[in-house]
């Protein structure tokens, strides 16, 4: 086939493209991923019995805003890094803001924690399970987001994969908060972050393998 013929053929396929089509597709995929995480969470770990009470308090929202914030940062990065020649500076700034905020909250809390309570503030009762559960809950979302990105045009594949993992991990951690009754900011700053970092790391490993086009 000559290149001119190919161009004629491609022009036949020149359907109008909606400006917001790319973000809309990503939002849809993320919502399905969040729903999948929730559907896995309920029979597996269950919802914390005091949820109704917890949503009236500060600590639940501290946790939720942090993890949701990571998800939003991840979304900003995925939306940019799915395009050629885009850097995603805004997303990185968001990650920084949320990370600094949770660390600051943790430091403030630790300042008024007695030495014998330090260990509990960091380790809670579930430190050894929390990151792995977040990673597990992030898997359906991660697969879906990578699949969606594959149809777009990421050019920095490890970075794009990490962004997908950050997004999936942030969403998964938010869903996990419906089960997890840990309240200490140091615990959240450490173990929730580790869970999301695991997910981002997995995404970075998968990116160069699955995102090629």
């Amino acid at each position: 086939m000559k290149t001119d013929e190919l161009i004629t053929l491609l022009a036949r396929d020149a359907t109008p493209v909606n400006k917001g089509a790319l973000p809309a597709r990503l939002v849809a995929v993320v919502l399905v991923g969040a729903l999948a995480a929730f559907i896995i969470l309920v029979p597996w770990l269950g919802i914390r019995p005091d949820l109704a009470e917890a949503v009236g308090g500060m600590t639940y929202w501290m946790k939720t805003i942090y993890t949701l914030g990571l998800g939003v940062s991840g979304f900003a990065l995925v939306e940019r890094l799915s395009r050629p020649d885009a850097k995603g500076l805004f997303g990185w700034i968001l990650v920084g803001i949320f990370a600094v905020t949770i660390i600051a909250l943790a430091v403030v809390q630790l300042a008024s924690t007695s030495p014998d309570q330090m260990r509990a503030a960091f380790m809670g009762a579930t430190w050894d399970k929390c990151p792995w559960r977040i990673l597990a809950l992030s898997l359906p979302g991660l697969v879906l987001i990578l699949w969606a990105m594959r149809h777009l045009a990421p050019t920095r594949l490890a970075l794009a994969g990490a962004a997908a993992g950050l997004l999936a991990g942030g969403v998964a951690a938010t869903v996990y908060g419906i089960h997890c009754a840990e309240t200490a900011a140091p615990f959240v700053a450490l173990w929730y972050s580790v869970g999301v970092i695991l997910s981002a790391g997995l995404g970075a490993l998968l990116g160069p393998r699955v995102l090629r086009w």
Partner: protein
Amino acid sequence: MSDLEARLKTLMLRGLAGDAAAHAELLGMLAGYLRGFFARKMGRNATDLEDLVQESLLAIHLKRDTYDRAQPFTAWAFTIARYKLIDWYRRNRSRGTEPLEQATEMFGSDDTAEVAVRRDLRKLVATLPEKQRVLLEDVKIVGLSNAEAAKKAGMTEGAVKVSIHRSLQTLMKRARSED
């Protein structure tokens, strides 16, 4: 460069609005720049030169929903061309010698004289599922309009469009895995 940017971007925006003639003109111009760019990187006699031009045009077309209208068009198109070139280097186990940083590198000069393809996309078309292949040939080779092809195949025009789009996606995938 900025004149060219404005001209190409206008064509791209018209193409994104559904203007097929503008889209064809854009791809035609890009083909020249891609050929010139790849010729400088791979050598004018590289057997894969025209294949890579075609593969890049397919990618630019199929990925056009990733173009952010607030950004320069030439940078976007150049990044795709560079990605395809690096991908080609990687598949052929050879190394790109110089870093490719600037879109000006690609849009400095064009080369409109088409060279022979090595891997004929027509052969790849033949490997498509029967129904998709017939539709593609109807619109491309026989020259039917989408509406005529739809009538002939007993499909809606929308389904014909989707089928052609899918065929092009399959072609791009197979063009990569052929090497």
